[in-house]
């Protein structure tokens, strides 16, 4: 199983690579060719979108989804997949998921820490914006935790930082890529 991480010059991609390597995947940067492409997310929406465009990764990710091949977006990677984000005064997204990213209004922001997803395992979140989307498939404290459209799946939490529960989640994503063949 080959997993490619879309690197756009910001944030910690090493933890994502390590998490997939622990599950036995080969990890590289071949976004077009890999069995699964991962859009990680740390940093600000505007800088991240600019980084994706500079490297042609926006088109590569859209093509993968158009061809029915899997893409996983993590945290900002979920928000970038939406039509747009309110962050940084408004940023156009990849349009892989319907909806927009809006600033969190309740509680302490950034929302940082472990929180249960759909009354199940707790996962680690660290975010100031969240998705508003009709494509939500899991929730955490009223916030979209996972959303899916076609072969794109996005998660607001960080499975690569969520201990045993996170590893189980990523193993499930890899398993669903295998079963697509």
């Amino acid at each position, binding site marked *: 199983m080959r997993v490619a991480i879309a690197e756009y010059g910001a944030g*910690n991609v*090493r*933890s994502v690579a*390590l*998490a997939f390597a622990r599950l036995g995947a080969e990890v590289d940067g071949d976004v077009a060719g890999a069995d699964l492409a991962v859009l990680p997310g740390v940093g600000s929406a505007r800088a991240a979108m600019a980084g994706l465009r500079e490297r042609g990764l926006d088109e590569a990710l859209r093509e993968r989804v158009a061809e029915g091949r899997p893409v996983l977006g993590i945290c900002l990677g979920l928000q970038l997949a939406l039509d747009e984000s309110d962050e940084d005064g408004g940023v156009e997204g990849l349009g892989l998921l319907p909806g927009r990213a809006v600033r969190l209004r309740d509680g302490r922001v950034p929302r*940082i820490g*472990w929180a249960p997803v759909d009354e199940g395992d707790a996962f680690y979140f660290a975010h100031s914006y969240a998705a508003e989307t009709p494509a939500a498939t899991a929730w955490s404290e009223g916030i979209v935790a996972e959303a899916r459209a076609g072969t794109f799946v996005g998660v607001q939490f960080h499975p690569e930082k*969520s*201990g045993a529960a996170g590893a189980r989640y990523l193993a499930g994503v890899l398993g669903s890529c295998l079963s697509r063949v």
Partner: protein
Amino acid sequence: MPLPRLIPCLDVAAGRVVKGVNFRGLRDVGDPVELGAAYSDRGADELVFLDVAATVEGRPTLVDLVRRVAGRLAIPFTVGGGVRAVGDAEELLAAGADKVAVNSAALARPELVTQLAGRLGSQAVVVAIDATQGRVQTRAGTTATGRDAVEWAREAEARGAGEILLTSIDADGTRDGYDLPLTRAVADAVTVPVIASGGAGEARHVADALEVAQAALLASILHENPDRLGSLRDELRELGVPVRDAA
């Protein structure tokens, strides 16, 4: 709100985890890679690594050691000590840190917090405040600044800090309990999460801190016996604190 967090803290000097009392009399308590892995495996909610000698020795953080610790973790990882510029922070994130903690350099140049938040996002920027009698100390607690801790926390938040890590030098290593009045004053003054630090000796202390702050830093109480993390979690649950089930 997310669950209250238990965060073991590795204070590192000369490549080893050390612990003192009131920031003095540091003694060796173990290997950072082994201790970090032990805490990650035992259900710590995050790990903090502070290179306590970097600023005083005038050198950057031990990036290679950070990389080795990060390689063994499946939980969020905050690294601080010696971060003086955005480039230092980016190097630490590339080595596997999720957040950077800034202290002395941010006090000297508060615009560093603005720059870090702009580049890395607020969620990756922790401003660490060491205080005694409500006043901020800098350079690993060696130098007084005269600044009020609450006022500095407010400014740090306004500049984009995503969390405040508040250490009471008076309580540090004493195992007599956290400085609750100071922690409450800072938590009331900001809307970002606050991590209470310094003074944990028993579960009751941690439970009290988590009434006020969103996370509790743990060091002396754990390092001699990392398994204590599991029993501490059980005791906290009995005290009604909804800590994470890490199974």
